[in-house]
């Protein structure tokens, strides 16, 4: 759970509220614009609640009455952006393309390297990061492949 400091800016409240209203409108439209209403009876109910609450949130955001959440400042965003980019690449591209184990090893090593405060110009720290990666991936392989017998996508590598 994030901390309870007030949010950084009103815009950080308005943009998500607007997106949630858009989602609620789409859900409502899909739920009501169908020929056969039977499968959508419950979604219709949910969509109306979603719409009412999201509009209430947008009104509160526009009038500056919703200020919960820590907000996201530029520095934090800059710090987490590489992790998010690596994670997206790992899951949506590499996992299927090069194989689960190869992609996981690359993602793990990249993230450890990116966020390890130890200097990058010392051979020992690189060896340490490599050893941690290999050790951890070996544990994962034993757990999932040998113990749980999970067949993960192989891809072009492994």
């Amino acid at each position, binding site marked *: 759970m*994030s901390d309870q400091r007030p949010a950084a800016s009103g815009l950080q*409240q308005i943009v998500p509220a607007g997106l949630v209203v858009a989602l609620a409108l789409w859900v409502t439209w899909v739920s009501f614009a169908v020929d056969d209403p039977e499968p959508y009876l419950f979604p219709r109910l949910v969509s109306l609640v979603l719409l009412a609450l999201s509009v209430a949130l947008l009104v509160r955001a526009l009038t500056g*009455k919703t200020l919960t959440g820590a907000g996201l400042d530029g520095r934090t965003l800059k710090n987490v952006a590489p*992790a998010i980019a690596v994670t997206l690449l790992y*899951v949506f591209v590499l996992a299927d393309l090069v194989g689960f184990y190869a992609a996981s090893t690359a993602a793990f090593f990249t993230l450890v390297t990116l*966020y390890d405060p130890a200097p990058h110009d010392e051979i020992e720290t690189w060896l340490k990061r490599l050893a941690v990666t290999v050790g*951890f991936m070996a544990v994962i392989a034993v757990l999932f492949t040998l113990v749980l017998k999970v067949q993960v996508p192989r891809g072009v590598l492994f």
Partner: protein
Amino acid sequence: MEFLQYFSAVLTPASLLFLGIGTIGGLILGATPGLSPTMAVALLIPFTFRMDPAQGLILLGAAYTSSVAGGAVSAILLKIPGAPANIATALDGYEMAKKGQAAKALQMCFVSSAIGGVIGILVLIFLTPLLAAWALGFGPSHLFWIAILGVTIIGTLDARSVVKGLLSGAMGLWIATIGYDSIQGVERFTFTEHLDGGVNVIAALIGLFAIPQIIEMLEGGRTRKTIEVLAVERHSIWASTREVFSKLRALGIGSVVGTIIGLIPGAGGQIAGIVSYDQTRKFSPNRDRFGKGESEGVVAAESANNAMVGPSLVPLLTLSVPGSPTAAVLLGGLLIHGIFPGPDLFSKHAAVAWTFIDSMLIGQILMMVFGLYIARLAARVVLIPPAILAPAILVLAVFGSFAVQHSLSDVFVMLTLGLGMYFLEKVGFSAAPMVLGIILGPIAESNYVQGRIIAEAGDGIFAYFFTGGLNIALIALCLASVAYSVAMEVRQRRLARIEGGAP
């Protein structure tokens, strides 16, 4: 006394092994700041997939119990609570550790956790069958309102904003409708092929609870944090145990407060620990010593947060309404084994249900024994840098969500929900109501559809869903939880304005 019959199932070598692994793993995970008990249990669920249902639940139950107690290790040695449930423990536990009484504080913490925990599990044992028997008479309209009540309570109590909490719950209810409709097999809201099978509950649990925490761990970038772990000196366990039993007032208040708060869906260990600490301080002749290393404070907080664990499972096992986010994750663990909790759980799956509950009772004792001996080791875990911990959890989350159905789509859904929740949490949304919505959505929908069929053949929808004593009571509870939370939010805003804070 049906529960006595199933102790033999817990005392088999395999069950004891899983109980031990769950307990030690939970203690270590709980001691790690940034890893909540909820996330620890969510990450463990895929490992239980191939296990016998009872053994899988033994592992999850042990991890739940011990991760709550394990959070006290970092609270005492670092003043960083491992979980919100341990906030009150840090107040006096850390002060004791600074005075060279770290071992004594840890020992008292595990002994009082076990006592509170046993009392909580006994309440679970004796109350659950009674409530389940009463709930057997519930019809679709009651079960529909109970599901809505579960989402409403967690949505309003767990969130900092009532509108955002309820919205989060409503989004969860909508997410639960994605995929094939269970009656006619019609595809709903499947704008990508990855959503054809709907949103897998376990993938959603892992994504919503693990991914935001992983990214939060990396928010500091490459900064190195120097953490000083206070030394754990040798101290007689028996002396600490005797001292715990001499603090009967704190133990009593902690166990009673924890039990009552555990029964209230959504309240959770954090509230139990803080309320119990506060009440014990008010009744103590040594109230001036609280916050300065008073052992009564540790006993009150730890007995309460573990006494909460058992009762928090009562609404889960009897009504399918999880009493806490971690109970919601446990519900996911039950569902993947095809066990649907509810009024008929003790008639259809008596062996699994009682073995699970009995294992939690034995787990309290194991937690105390292991906790006392591995506290030193657990404290070292906090030294694992976020640069290693975060990628490790990410890889576990990816493999774990894939393992459930051998589906890459589940991994995509897990990551999408998790990343979305990271940004939503930054603006005050919370994951727990959404998870509750996803879990309780199918229960609410199936009972709504069944209720409509019954209503159309009878007095109509309004009469069926909105009249009758129980329906009205459940609707009143939904409205009361919203009204209470709105009142609290208004009060907090007014206080903040007086103090010159946020408007």
